[in-house]
């Protein structure tokens, strides 16, 4: 392995900018770090280069731990977005800089310089000043300079950012060729997905300082695991579908019979449909693929090779199909059609079309949507506007539903709202909410968020579960939440005060939890060990830092309200309860 990152974390004024990133990059691999601005990708690159230290974690280059090694001794080459050429030096002096530092003889220097200039196709430019070169040429010089000392790793920080489209493509090809020829392990940072596709052997996608997914471009595009990756890497339509015994159901139609899961309880899932996998036709019968619903064409845009449509889509009963909240500007179905399809069926704005889907991908994410539950509609609506909830729903690109339960919290009262609990249920975190939480959990709510009115985005999420049956689900839900908030994740293992002998077991549980979170859910988390009563220990740790949140897995509901009253009542912290019964 060329580059090993192990739980690399970097904070700026308290907030994690790079959050528990672990990654292995192979010899000669071209790895692209892709993410929106502020996702921590550049900070991570600078950490690899040694220009900014890390607060936690280890960095190894070619098996050598360089976490505390200065940048100049790491043997990396770095290329900057703004070229960062030494303006008072000629091209030759720029390229020879690293060689001069190493006291190489003039003749050897000249020879190496000629070699590098040939490599980046700039022969004969030796005596120019940077100011006399075009942007593309300057960046070529910067690449040659970064390669002069034969570094083992080449790092590129948005190297095409300042160039126009045509030059960009040319330079992209040059860099790819140079990388192939030298076989040098390369990490490139960009926010441009097209660039990532064009260059990468593997892409790693970052958001809020976390590395969400890493994989081959085609694999990530067709089989993303998270909503963020699905929507950031190309365009995607997100649907709230139901996983039933017969397959994946969108609205009333079964879309993917292949994904049959006999015996499993029906539940809501998030499905991704790429715009090119959507088919439109004049009528249901004319569709070559599975019918999903009808829609009205909102917008037709011609882009040359393709035509882009925006369609307001509803299922047969008229309910909106997409996962987005109603009124959201993105709540239209995106469709791209080839010239061939356009010739077969011409579409105009305002036209009603039948919609079919050729391929649908179900995300493994467990938090599909939110349903706010309260005793009256007014209260439910009030809670649905809570800042943190609205923020989470927007980031997850999902909707917030309402569920009115006048009997909420009254012992013996039955559910009045129809149907099973959908997605995560949300109740207000206030006095008496432990009772209400128990009431909902007993009546079938699986994931329950107890949300205090003043809750803010958490900076630290504590994770704990009671009973092994809840472990996997709790980790899955935690991973889902942590992809959408810039917070650090801490698993708290708690050893009962009386069981001194449970020590080693507690430790093993801790390590198992960490590796399972990493392997099965792509979640990197810290682990801490506590002692004593679970409720007291969790409350103490939650109070330690501001803006904490708890994700608590439970298996049995015996004396639930009584046991966890100290954590829930009073609404000091948001608590997400994950209930999975032991089988």
């Amino acid at each position, binding site marked *: 392995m060329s580059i090993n990152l192990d739980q690399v974390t970097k904070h700026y004024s308290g907030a994690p900018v790079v959050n528990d990133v672990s990654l292995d990059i192979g010899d000669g691999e071209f790895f692209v770090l892709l993410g929106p601005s502020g996702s921590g990708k550049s900070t991570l690159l*600078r950490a690899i*280069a*040694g*220009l900014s230290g890390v607060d936690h974690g280890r960095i190894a280059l070619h098996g050598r731990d360089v976490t505390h090694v*200065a*940048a*100049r*001794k*790491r043997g*990396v*080459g*770095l290329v*900057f977005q*703004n070229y*960062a050429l*030494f*303006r*008072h030096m*000629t091209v030759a002096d720029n390229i020879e*800089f*690293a060689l001069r*530092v*190493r006291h190489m003889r003039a003749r050897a220097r000249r020879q190496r310089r000629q070699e590098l200039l040939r490599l980046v196709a700039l022969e004969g430019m030796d*005596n*120019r*000043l940077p100011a*006399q070169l075009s942007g593309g040429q300057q960046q070529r010089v*910067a690449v040659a*300079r*970064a390669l*002069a*000392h034969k570094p083992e790793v080449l790092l590129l920080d948005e190297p095409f950012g300042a160039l126009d489209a045509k030059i960009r493509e040319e330079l992209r090809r040059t860099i790819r060729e140079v990388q192939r020829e030298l076989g040098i392990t390369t990490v490139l940072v960009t926010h441009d997905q097209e660039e990532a596709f064009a260059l990468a052997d593997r892409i790693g996608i970052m958001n809020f300082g976390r590395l969400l997914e890493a994989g081959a471009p085609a694999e990530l595009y067709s089989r993303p695991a998270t909503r963020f990756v699905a929507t950031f890497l190309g365009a995607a339509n997100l649907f709230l579908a139901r996983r039933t015994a017969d397959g994946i159901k969108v609205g009333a139609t079964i879309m993917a019979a292949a994904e049959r899961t006999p015996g499993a309880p029906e539940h809501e899932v998030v499905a991704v449909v790429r715009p090119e996998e959507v088919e439109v036709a004049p009528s249901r019968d004319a569709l070559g693929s599975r019918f999903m619903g009808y829609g009205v064409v909102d917008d037709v845009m011609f882009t040359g090779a393709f035509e882009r449509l925006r369609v307001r889509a509803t299922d047969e009963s008229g309910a909106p199909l997409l996962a987005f909240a109603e009124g959201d500007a993105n709540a239209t179905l995106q469709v791209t059609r080839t010239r061939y399809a356009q010739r077969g069926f011409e579409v105009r704005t305002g036209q009603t079309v039948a919609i079919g889907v050729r391929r649908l991908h179900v995300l493994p994410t467990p938090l599909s949507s939110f349903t706010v539950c309260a005793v009256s509609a007014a209260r439910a609506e009030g809670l649905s506007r809570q800042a943190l909830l609205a923020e989470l729903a927007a980031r997850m690109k999902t909707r917030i539903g309402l569920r009115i339960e006048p009997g909420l919290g009254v012992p013996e009262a039955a559910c009045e709202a129809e149907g099973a609990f959908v997605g995560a249920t949300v109740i207000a975190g206030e006095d008496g909410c432990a009772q209400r939480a128990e009431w909902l959990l007993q009546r079938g709510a699986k994931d329950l968020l107890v949300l205090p009115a003043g809750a803010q985005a958490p900076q630290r999420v504590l994770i704990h579960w009671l009973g092994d049956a809840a472990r996997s689900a709790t980790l899955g839900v935690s991973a889902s939440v942590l992809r959408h908030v810039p917070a650090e994740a801490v698993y708290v293992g708690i050893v009962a005060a009386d069981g001194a002998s449970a020590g080693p077991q507690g430790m093993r549980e801790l390590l198992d939890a960490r590796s399972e979170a990493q392997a099965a859910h792509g979640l990197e988390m810290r682990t801490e060990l506590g002692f004593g009563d679970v409720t007291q220990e969790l409350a103490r740790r939650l109070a330690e830092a501001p803006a904490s949140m708890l994700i608590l897995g439970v298996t049995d509901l015996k004396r639930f309200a009584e046991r966890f009253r100290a954590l829930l009542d009073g609404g000091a912290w948001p608590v997400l309860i994950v209930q999975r019964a032991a089988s």
Partner: protein
Amino acid sequence: MSFRKPSVLPGFGLTFGFTTFFLSAIVLLPLAALVLAAASMHWSDFLRVVSSPRALGSYRLSFGASFLAASINLVFGFIIAWTLTRYEFPGRKVIDALIDMPFALPTAVSGIALTTVFAQNGWIGRYLEPLGIKVAYTWLGVTLALTLISMPFAVRAVQPALLEVQRDLEDAAETLGAGRFYVFRRIILPTVLPALLTGFTLSFARAVGEYGSVIFIAGNLPMKTEITPLLIVIHLEEFDYQGAAALGVVMLTISFVVLLAINLLQAWGRRSRVRAAH
């Protein structure tokens, strides 16, 4: 090459006219009057006045102390500018504003303040006295006063240039294997060198012309701590206008030669860099 070059803003003729008029009225005419006044002297009288041992001693002190003051400011002005541009710390704005204080203070006040501090019984002077260091009423005091009043020029000239040095350049040099001293010598210094020279020139020019602050701390012993501007004033007080003008012409000439030399040096530095490109 044409004399007039197209520009975004019109009105070359008008602005050039104003430039020559203002330069003539405010700079050239008074200087010409000075030279004329001196020219009315007999050649031997002129030589006697400007080469008297007292005059020679004053040149040495004036230009020597100014050169020293400008050199001190070159180093410390750079360090101050570096601190102000590179670091965020509480009170940075206050210190930044303090730099300009010597501009605003009447120079006589600076002189009196310095004397209070560095006189034999002053706050600092009384501790230097036992060590055998005398500041007030020696050339040291003169240099100190000149350093104080010319300091802002050095800082303000270097500050913008330092802001221009991108951190990326230093980062790039570091990843290429350069140590801190190497980065400073090869990257930072060459970039700010023109600004440093400008700061030196301005400091020097300001120090040579200084009068107010120096006379309080210098003690004004002929041959030892008497600066040329003071000697000129002494001539004036004796109604020897021609003698004063003669000394003025000498100062003017030396200053002009020094400033011209520095400017040529700068131009040569720029040219040699461009030459390297072809």
